[in-house]
């Protein structure tokens, strides 16, 4: 935005007539909504979208929140849809249009359903009532288990489970603390090694046969001996300064 101005925001109070301008859903055809784009709905201020508009702040409302109950109560069809689709919380994000002199006000983005309830978020009640969604419930169970048996299992191990699906190294989570510690140390060394941070990586350079300062011009692998030949510049015919690297063994390595 090169030229723009903040519109004058005056928080609305009392009843608000809100028009739905767009909607999107995980479900084809957005079957869970009862207000179609272009339609209007009157909100009383306690409703979560209205409260979000009035305060200009994003909020998460769960089933134990008056703003959520109020919004549900506007339309019996909505209450049925929420039950049918298992929606138990909503996130309202006020969007402020900028640089449009003629428009003023806040647009609520309303979404329902799959939000991870944070420690202090209003959506927490829904989880306690068993309305958790797939993926959220395991984490809550892990936390609960951690509270019952603090020493048995770090909650973080299961909390990271989702991240581990994206291709990081995976090792079996063993019950044996000694095996776990051993793997942790070896894995740590390997990681350092591959990041060239391990002291051994610098201290065990392969020893060069021949002229150690020569810059090789060409590399050739000998299929018979599996030795790698690095030829000096201008000496393609001969292999003076070759580095022999037999498979599985480095010259000079212990």
């Amino acid at each position: 935005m090169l030229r723009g101005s903040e519109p004058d925001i005056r928080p609305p109070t009392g009843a608000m007539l809100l028009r739905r301008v767009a909607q999107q859903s995980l479900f084809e055809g957005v079957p869970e909504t009862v207000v179609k784009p272009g339609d209007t709905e009157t909100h009383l201020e306690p409703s979560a979208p209205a409260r979000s508009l009035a305060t200009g702040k994003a909020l998460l409302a769960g089933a134990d929140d008056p703003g959520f109950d109020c919004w549900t109560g506007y339309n019996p069809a909505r209450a049925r849809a929420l039950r049918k689709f298992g929606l138990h919380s909503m996130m309202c994000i006020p969007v402020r249009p900028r640089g449009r002199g003629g428009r003023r006000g806040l647009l609520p983005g309303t979404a329902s359903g799959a939000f991870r309830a944070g420690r202090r978020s209003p959506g927490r009640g829904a989880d306690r009532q068993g309305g958790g969604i797939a993926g959220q419930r395991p984490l809550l169970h892990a936390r609960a288990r951690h509270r019952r048996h603090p020493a048995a299992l770090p909650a973080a191990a299961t909390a990271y489970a989702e991240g581990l699906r994206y291709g990081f190294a995976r090792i079996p989570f063993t019950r044996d603390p000694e095996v776990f510690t051993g793997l942790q140390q070896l894995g740590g060394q390997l990681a350092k090694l591959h990041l060239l941070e391990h002291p051994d990586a610098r201290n065990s350079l392969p020893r060069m046969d021949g002229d150690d300062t020569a810059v090789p011009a060409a590399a050739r692998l000998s299929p018979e001996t599996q030795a790698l030949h690095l030829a000096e510049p201008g000496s393609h015919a001969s292999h003076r300064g070759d580095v022999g690297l037999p498979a599985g063994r480095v010259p000079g390595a212990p």
Partner: protein
Amino acid sequence: MWACQQGGYRVLRDYLDQRRGRPLDSEEFDDFRNLVAVVRLTLDQLPAIDPLVEEAAANSFSAEDLGLPSS
């Protein structure tokens, strides 16, 4: 060592393959020597790691134990 792969990347061979047809400069040459050392040390560690991984797998928590979906 030549055949050593990391995630499908043949470390030493591919390093040189990518520079085929031109001389290595001295920095690349040093890098290559470092790679050789790292591959060597990696291969040295594998025999210690594998039995531990097997042991860990034999006595691991199941997805059910951890309350995870068994996907």
